[in-house]
Structure formats: C-alpha cells, structure tokens
C-alpha cells in the first residue's frame, strides 16, 4: 500500500510543503512514478521507527472521534421517556415515585440510583427555579448504556427547597454513563429552559410528541 504526499502529510501532521522539502533533501524514503511521489507504508514505518517520529496511520481524524460522543437532547429524552401525574408530598417520595416508573433503569439498580439522587439533593437542591428541577447523581452511572433524560410532570407541585422557594412541578432527570455527555445535556437543557415560550409550553403539560419536536427545534437553534 502506498501514500501520496497529501495523505502522508496528514498522517505526519505537517503540511505537504514539508514533505516535498524532505523528499528534495533526501530525508524520506520515496518511490517516484512519473511526477508523483509515492510512499510505501513498510518503508515509512521503518523510517518512523528509526527516527522516533510518530506516524499516525489510523484513518480517522482525532476530531471525528470526539464528535461521536455528542448526543442530542431530543434523543436523550426519547431514551429516558416522558411521564405524567407523579404523586408525592416531599423530595424523597417524589424521587422514589419517579424512579419506580423509570423503565430505562433495571430494577436491581433503582435503590442505588435513589440513594445517589437523595444524596445530591441533600448537598444542594437541584430545583433551579420556575417550578423546574433537574435531579441527577454526582457520579456517573456505570450501569447505563446510553445517556437518558426522563421528564416527569407531577400531579401537584411539591416543595423542593428550590432556589427561588417556589414549588416544583416538572422534573428533568439527567442520567449519563459519562461526565462529558452530562455536561452537554445539562447545557442543552438549560438553554431550552431559559426560553420563556418553552416554559409556558411546559406548564401546559404538552403531548410527548409535541414536546420532543419542540426540543428538536430549540436544539437546532443552539448546536453544541
């Protein structure tokens, strides 16, 4: 297998000019076919090894890899699900009722998740004001495969020790296997919640399909 100047320049992380200069100076193993330079991989590997130079032969761009881990809020909501009419009188009972309904969490782990969420609430309330709370564990959940955002509408508003001391009626659970996704989802969510129209829309207890559509519209306006 052979590389052209342009391909090799990508693998070495230099510009094609540098490759051409090295060839001219006789510092790179090259085979010439007509006017074009060709580089054999076997020779390049030997060259890189003797020169202690890093030859990044994998085809994917490191920047591409990072993009993979990005997940949109709407698909996370689809993962997590939307639930209505949760009953409870205080923080712990509401949390217990929500977790019980959550289909994405296996029954064996529900106790663990509950403990973690309560611990987080005791440290600092996640009620961010305007009747909304975003409960989430501090550490990420290893037993989760995909990030999920579950939305729960309470039957009656509950005193949640929120920052603005208003009772909470909607909860967004953010559950992620990795911290990076958590921050992304949190940022995307807070963008949506800052939107006054969206807040009014939430208070109207919308249909799940409409809600996901609305989130999709908002997240295209604010790409991550």
């Amino acid at each position, binding site marked *: 297998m052979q590389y052209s100047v342009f391909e090799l320049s990508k693998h*070495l*992380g*230099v*510009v094609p*000019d*540098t490759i051409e*200069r*090295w*060839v*001219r*100076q*006789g*510092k790179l193993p090259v*085979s010439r076919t007509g006017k074009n330079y060709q580089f054999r991989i076997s020779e390049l590997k030997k060259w890189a090894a*003797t*020169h*202690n*130079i890093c030859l990044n032969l994998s085809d994917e761009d490191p920047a591409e890899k990072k993009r993979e881990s990005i997940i949109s809020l709407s698909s996370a909501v689809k993962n997590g699900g939307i639930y209505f009419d949760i009953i409870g009188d205080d923080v712990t009972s509401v949390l217990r009722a929500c977790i019980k309904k959550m289909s994405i969490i296996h029954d064996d782990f529900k106790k663990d998740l509950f403990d973690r969420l309560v611990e987080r609430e005791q440290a600092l309330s996640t009620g961010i004001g305007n009747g909304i709370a975003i409960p989430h564990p501090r550490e990420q959940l290893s037993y989760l495969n995909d990030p999920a955002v579950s939305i729960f509408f309470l039957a009656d508003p509950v005193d949640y020790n929120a920052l603005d001391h208003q009772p909470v009626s909607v909860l967004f659970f953010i559950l992620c296997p990795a911290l990076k996704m958590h921050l992304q989802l949190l940022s995307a969510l807070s963008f949506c919640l800052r939107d006054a129209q969206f807040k009014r829309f939430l208070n109207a207890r919308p249909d799940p399909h409409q809600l996901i559509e609305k989130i999709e519209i908002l997240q295209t306006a604010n*790409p*991550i």
Partner: protein
Amino acid sequence: MSTLKKGYSILYQWLFHRDDRLLLIIAGSVAGICSGLAAVALRLSLQTVLEWLHPFRHYGWAFVLPAVGALLSSLYLEKIAREGAGHGVPEVIYAVSRYGGLLRFRSSYSRLISSFLTIGSGGSAGPEAPVVMSGSAIGSNIAKFLSLNERQRITLVGCGTAGAIASIFNAPIAGLVFAIEVILGEWKFVNIIPIAIAAVAGAEVSQAIIPEQVIFNHQTFQVGLLDILPSLCLALVTALVSVVFTKTLQQSGKIARTSSFPLWVRAVFGGCIVGTIGIFMPVVLGEGYHFIQEMISGTFSLGVFITFVAVFAKIFATAMTLGWGGSGGIFAPCLVIGSLTGIVFHKFLLILLPSVGCAREGAYALLGMTGIISGVMQAPLTGIFLIVEITGGYEMTLPLIVVSSISSTMSHYIEPASFYFKDLIERGQFLRPGTDARILSDLNISELIETRYTKVSGNMVFREFIEIIKTSRQNFFPVIDDRTNEYKGMVKISAIRKYVLDPGMYDMIFLSQIMDTEVMTVSLENDLQEVLEIMDINGMETIPVVEHDRFVGMISKTRILDLYRRELIVQTSAH
C-alpha cells in the same frame, strides 16, 4: 527489447534506488577523477607559465606582472564569468548548507581561469580554493545530471572537494578530512566512504599524470621527545601568526572595499605592490610550492632575519593579492607562511640553545605549516593529516598533534571564527547541519502556519460573537473588513473576558471596538528567526501572519516546537 529494458530498470532499482551507496560510490569516484584532472590542469599550466615568465623576473618592470594578472583575473570574473571575487570556499560551504550543494556549472572552470591568471603572473595566492570550488561544482553538476536529491548531491560535492585537495597535494586522507571537516561539517557514515574513494581517485589521477611533480616528496624525519617542548612554543608562535594573517587579510579587504576605485584599478594597485615586494623577495610570489619543497628538504638558504621579514612580507603580499581583487585561496600561502615561521623558529632555537639535539629544519617547517593551517582554518585534523601524508610516516604524529591542537585552540580563543567561516557567520549564513540556525532556516513560515481560523467581521455585534465562541475552540479571532477582506485586528478571548461575562454589553458593542489592533504581525517573507525574535520580545505565544493586508493564519510556539523537534531528528539522523 522490452524485456531488456525491464530487466535494466529492475537492476537499476535494485542497485541504486533501494540503497544509494553504490550509486554514490560510482558517481563520487567520477567526481573525484574529474576534479583531480582539474587540479592537475591548473598545476601544469601554473608550472608552465611560471617557468615561461621566470626570465623576465629580473627586469625592473617585472613588478607590473602581478598587476596585469590581477587585472585580467578581476575583469574576467566581473565581466565574463560574473562571479564574485574571493576564494570560493565560503560560497561552497554556504551552497552546501543552504541550497543542498547546488552550484553553477560555470563555477567548475571560472575560478580555475581567474586564479591561473592571478597566480601565474606572480600574485600571492593558492590554487587550492579555486580547485575546491571547481571540484565541488563538478560534483554538484554530476548530481544534477543524475537528478539526485540534496543529501546525495552534498555527498558528491564533498567527493569533488576531496578529489581536488587529494590530487593537488597527493594526499588522499587530507582530502577526505578537509572535505568533511571544512566543507560538509558532519561526519556521517554515508558520506565517508564515497568521499574516501573520490579522494583516492583524485590522488591517483595526479600521480598517473605528473608523477615527477608531486608537490611534496616523502621525507622522513627523526623527531624525538626533545622536540615536544619546542613544539609547544612553536604552536604559540603559529597561533599568533595565524591571527595576524587572518586580521591582515580582513583589514586589507575592508580597506579595498571602502576605496571608491573600480575593481580593476584596485587589482592593478594590489598587483603592483605584490610585484614590488617580489623583486626583493621572490619567496612571496606565486603559490610558493617550490619554496616549500626547498624548506622541507633543508636547502632553503636565506638568513634568519630575512626569513623573519619574509613571513610578514608573504602575509602582506597575500593580503594585497586577495583583498584587492586577485583570485585564489589561502591554503598555499598558509603553507608558505607556516614553513617560513617554522624555519625562523628553528633558527632562533639553534642560536639560543646550540647544543640541543632537536630535529632538522625541515621538520619544523612542517610543524609550522600544521600550526598555521590549524590556526587560520581552525581545521586541526586537516593540518595533521596533510603533514602526516607529506612525510609518509607517523614519526611526527605526536608533535603534530601538539602543535595543531594548541595552535587551533589559541587562535580560536583570540579569533573565534575561522577564516573560511567568518564571512558566513557575519552574514548569518553559517548553517551547519543540526544547528539551531540551520533548522530555523530550513523550516519555512508556510510550513508552520495554521490556517484553519474562523474570521469575524468588525461590524459584528458582540452578541453574535458570543454565539460563535460558544462552539469554537479558537482562542484568537482575526477581525477583517467586510468589504475589502483587509485584516483589521485580533480579538483575544483571554483579553475580553470581562465583556463576555457581562450580558449587558452584548448588544452595546461591535467587535471593531474591542479588537486589539496593536498585535504584532509577521508576513510570509519573514524567516523563522525573525518571527521568533518578535514573539520573544513581545512575550507572545502565537503571532498572526498577514500578507498584503490579508490574514493568512497564525504561528504558535506549540506548533514550532513540534516541527522543530522533527526537523532536528530528521537532520541529525545517521542516514
């Protein structure tokens, strides 16, 4: 036919492409033979013209002879060959380090002709540098003919140089050492074998054509331990003389350049002075091989005082020849001055301590030569090996090493740059492989520049900009004019933090109000050395590159380190 062709191409690939050693050895020996022939040609023609002019030397008007020679030589170089005066060795060194040994074909004969005119008429200069120039140009053009790369071409330039020196002195090892020590500046395994073979080829050429005129016949000397102490003193003397010689050469060149006369008038003036000295002291004339031979064999008959004066007369005559427009090298004058110094020293020694049983006069002449070569060229190995080969034995090795090392160290202490390198260092063109200067000169600005930058317009509202920086990884945003695309200034994220954190400002300001227009910029024409200097002075980590008012990209120190390291590895690797 086609199978024959195919077979040939496979053989060619197998022999030359995969491993170029065989190719370099063959091409190198051709270069060695050609440059050897050039050296022999110059030697023979110099010999002939000196003999032919000899009867005229007794006339009073003979002092104009060097003037005529210098005049013709300077006119030839200036009008016909259109090459600079001087001896050519720095040019070869610069071509090797900067242009991969690229030399014009014209250089392979132009210096031969001009130095023939200068030296043949009696000017005090050496034929070695012209022959080196010619040999290296031959090597370079052979490489060009075979379309070799720069590394291979440099090796062939070294081959030509080695062949020339080996041929003129019949000293192959001295040729090899000179080529590597002075011209190439790097002892690489891949270079040494082809150059050694070329040196042997060059020496064989001269032996085959002019066996009876080999410059220095082998001589053997009995040198004992008693000579070590005098050698030490001689080394100090030669160090001093070398410094005087180097300084005189430079001064005379400087004075000549500041005078307002055209080059040919200067050449005539210098030549007349050399001719006048030559009437009273013929030892200063020409390349002086004949006198060197006399001094080594002990048949040199001048008295101690005259010899002492002759040392300085030769220095002065050489300075007048080379500094004022003549063409030639300093190698032979170094040898003459060295042997004269050695003889003076020996004579003084005999006067002071008549009963000490030290070696013969010739041995001290040789030691003096080593001392001056090591001192002026600061090439101690060349000095040692040249004399070892001249004597044909190793009896004198110990005092040679003593003289050579002390003389080169002392003169290096007084005058840090050798004669060959001084001009290059002053012009910032001394670029030995693996040195910082060489790497910086090889790395081009266009190779370092990072161009993937989002540009913003000066009319952009700050709120819009906040949206851009949310999703961008950039720390610097070049601001350009909407209409003309002209570069206006730079927005540094680190410098605008207080506005970013204040939402009240978002709709109040435009980017043209918060951009920094004082940021230093560089252009693609700047070399890396200058760019780094600007960055260091202003304490910058990154610097924008702006060409014709257009933003091109940024150069960061991180990127420079990355490429600098790779360039260093690639340049200094054994292959």
